[in-house]
């Protein structure tokens, strides 16, 4: 190593990290870990909510369909009763 390289070695020697650097790294690492846990919790919640929401949707659709079916049967029953009354009615005397 010649003089120039010795100068270069001295110029590029290690420098001290800024004061408090390690503390800032640890805080940032902790914040990153908390963010990850936050995402994980949100994802878990979404995984629980989505099936429950779908089940509720299926349940309400079924109730609506049942109500429509009851109404349709009730209308049909009324019409059939009317037709039955007409068929069993006494013919009018001329």
């Amino acid at each position: 190593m010649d003089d120039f390289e010795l100068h270069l070695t001295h110029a590029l020697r290690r420098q001290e990290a800024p004061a408090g650097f390690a503390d800032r790294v640890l805080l940032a690492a902790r914040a990153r870990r908390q963010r990850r846990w936050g995402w994980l919790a949100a994802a878990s919640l979404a995984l629980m909510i989505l099936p429950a929401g779908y089940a509720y949707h299926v349940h309400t659709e079924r109730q609506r369909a049942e109500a429509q079916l009851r109404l349709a049967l009730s209308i049909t029953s009324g019409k059939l009763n009317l037709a039955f009354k007409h068929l069993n009615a006494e013919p009018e005397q001329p």
Partner: protein
Amino acid sequence: MHPLDLDLPMPLEAAEAAVPLRSFREIVTAHQSLVFSIALHTLRNRALAEEVAQEVFLRLSDRLGGIQSEAHLVNWLRTVTSRLCIDELRSHGRKALSLEAVPEPAAEPHPRDPFLSAHLRHLVGELPPPVRVALVLRYQEDLDPSEIARILQEPLPTIKSRLQRGLQALRDSFKTLGVGHGRL
């Protein structure tokens, strides 16, 4: 228990891997100078160097379990820091300092001359990023070309050529500016 729990030892699997049982804080404290200096000498910007150094340690915190020894740790830190610095320089296309902006040093440089050292650091900052990183690893970390080639994942002849070209460019700049009356 997580390795980031301050002042607590690493979990068993990480502790077995990393030979000495150390907390993450101890690892950061022990190696912050290495990481920060590579970033500072390469990027020539203290705030940016700190940002990159912080990112290096954050990445380390995710990979502590995979670190097998102290030598592995140091090698990992040098590798990741060098790559992040090159990426940073490439992505932001940071302009190197112009030679005109560098104050001319006084004659008769002394190895401990702070003015000469500052001048040399400025000149290193003028070099292309891959050459700069190779020089920093060579003269800051005292690595030989084969170790630098391994860290930067480049062929050995490429690294030797970069070191030669970088050194020659620095010597030429010094001659041009008449530093040390051509003694260097």
